[in-house]
């Protein structure tokens, strides 16, 4: 039998047959590793997750035409430049002044489904318009006209006089009937607009759909957004993409604080956990001073004793690290599901890192008591009852 085989046999024997003690150590290491991997997962995933939360502040980038109006093509090519997993919503808006009861009101036409995503803070009393002929009115407008969900109204639109200069020609106003589906409450000037689908506004005005502005809600830091904006400005002609500073800047500030909070908490928790693991390992090894004495009496060199105990420590650390990294992932997953309602992304690199960290900490924790134990006189250990 080779020496190495005996070495492995001794370590396995020690680990498997001293089950209760080793389980204590393993448990300690696994908990430590679980906390490590769990918190690191949360820490790395928090910006992504929180960034999604911060999208509740609405659009953080707007696209306008340098001159005139945006075309659908402009919007599409801009969207193509934004990584799809980062894009929360893109809502192009077209504004026209229409008349309700002969009083002018600003009508906004947009992709209403996207608007719901880019402006999640809009509070709608009633429903969002879904079908043609449905309209959502701002709270201010609703007050002025005494509108409620379910009421009917008629919008009229006066087309500009033809370019042929025939101003005498009486141009009939376009009109369309709408049913109010909801009242919009935002606390901002959106309350003074009415919202309808793009098709309805095109039908009402008789003008092909172009947009005044397109709102984007993109998850990412302001630096990432700046890169995207520059890319759009560079590759799409005639448009200008700008960040909504109020949203991006503030998000950076708040997110930075939150992340450093989680980081500090992680560091504190980790430091304490590591010390806990170390004290447990110290207790577990210190218990075996007598065995160390015996091995010395049998002629074992300090090096081989350290080697054997470190071997055990490494195996324990690796096993604990593996169990811990799995548990930690579950922990992080549970937290993520509870807090953010979304699953966490598994980071495969974290498993070897956790195992390595567990091995290093366990090894270091074993080292202290072993060092002091190998220095003792074998005779003293053997004499003691």
């Amino acid at each position, binding site marked *: *039998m*080779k*020496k190495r*085989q*005996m*070495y492995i*046999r*001794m370590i396995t*024997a*020690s680990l498997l*047959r*001293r089950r209760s003690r080793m389980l204590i150590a393993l448990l300690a290491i696994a908990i430590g590793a679980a906390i490590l991997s769990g918190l690191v997962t949360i820490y790395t995933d928090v910006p992504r997750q929180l960034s999604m939360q911060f999208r509740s502040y609405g659009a953080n980038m707007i696209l306008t035409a340098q001159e005139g109006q945006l075309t659908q093509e402009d919007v599409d090519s801009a969207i193509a430049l934004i990584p799809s997993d980062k894009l929360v919503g893109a809502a192009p808006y077209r504004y026209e002044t229409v008349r309700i009861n002969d009083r002018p009101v600003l009508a906004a036409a947009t992709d209403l489904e996207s608007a719901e995503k880019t402006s999640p803070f809009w509070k709608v009393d009633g429903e969002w318009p879904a079908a043609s002929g449905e309209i959502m009115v701002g709270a201010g407008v609703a007050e002025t006209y005494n509108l409620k969900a379910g009421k009917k109204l008629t919008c009229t639109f006066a087309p500009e006089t033809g370019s042929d200069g025939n101003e005498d020609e009486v141009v009939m106003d376009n009109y369309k009937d709408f049913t109010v589906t909801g009242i919009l409450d935002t606390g901002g000037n959106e309350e003074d607009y009415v919202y309808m689908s793009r098709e309805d506004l095109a039908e009402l005005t008789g003008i092909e759909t172009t947009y005044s502005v397109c709102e984007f809600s993109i998850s990412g830091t302001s630096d990432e957004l700046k890169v995207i904006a520059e890319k759009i400005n560079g590759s799409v002609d005639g448009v200008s993409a700008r960040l909504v500073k109020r949203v991006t800047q503030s998000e950076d500030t708040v997110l930075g604080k939150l992340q450093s909070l989680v980081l500090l908490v992680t560091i504190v928790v980790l430091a304490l956990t590591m010390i806990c693991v170390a004290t447990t390992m110290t207790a577990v090894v210190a218990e075996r001073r*007598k*065995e160390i004495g*015996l*091995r*010395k*009496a*049998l*002629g*074992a*060199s*300090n090096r*081989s004793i350290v080697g054997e105990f470190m071997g055990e420590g490494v195996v324990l650390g690796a096993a604990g690290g593996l169990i811990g990294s799995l548990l930690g992932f579950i922990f992080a997953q549970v937290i993520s599901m509870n807090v953010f309602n979304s699953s966490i992304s598994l980071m495969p690199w974290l498993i070897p890192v956790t195992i390595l960290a567990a091995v290093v900490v366990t090894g270091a924790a074993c080292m202290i008591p072993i060092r002091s134990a190998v220095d003792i*006189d*074998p*005779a003293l250990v*053997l*004499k003691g*009852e």
Partner: protein
Amino acid sequence: MSLLELKNVSKIYGELHALDHVNIKVEKGEWLAIMGPSGSGKSTMMNIIGALDRATEGEILLDGEDIAKKSEKALTNIRRDKIGLIFQQFHLVSYLTAVENVMLSQYYHSVPDEKEALEALERVGLKDRAKHYPSQLSGGEQQRVCVARALINYPEIILADEPTGNLDEANEEIVVELFRKLHQEGTTLIVVTHNPEVAEVAQRTIVLRNGKVDHETINENFTGKIKHITLM
């Protein structure tokens, strides 16, 4: 040349002279018993002979080599290569089987060999208990594992500290019988004990008192067999 020679060896713990200028010679193949009351210096002497501890002064010649001034590391090598230890408390590693405990000694000495270890256990009559753990063995059986562990590397000296201290009479006899066999095979045996029955079987007995050699007796009719003193 004697196998082992202690010249003017003293061991001083603070004020206490545990060994006081002791001179002893042990010949190769000899069976020596060391006796004495508690505190007479038996254990100290055992530790010094076993290279577990160093003397304060004096020379210890093992195979003609003075080991008194050797480094810690050199002492470790001497223990490994030349000495087989047997303890009163057995000191078996609780999570290793009998055969593995024997192999442990081989492991530190050279290369573990399960077959050889099993043969050693066979010699002490424990072949069928090889896969048992110390906790599953009786005291006598544990001590026999210790003997097997001590002899596995063919040491120059087997040093036994109260080998029968924790054993009943029947087991005591078995262990002494093992010693007799070892002696016949030419092994040098040093047995530290305060049991006169165990001491009497040896060829020669040294009695220590207050750290000094008090007197020495030679067993004229040495048989290596134990004679029980029966109380009438």
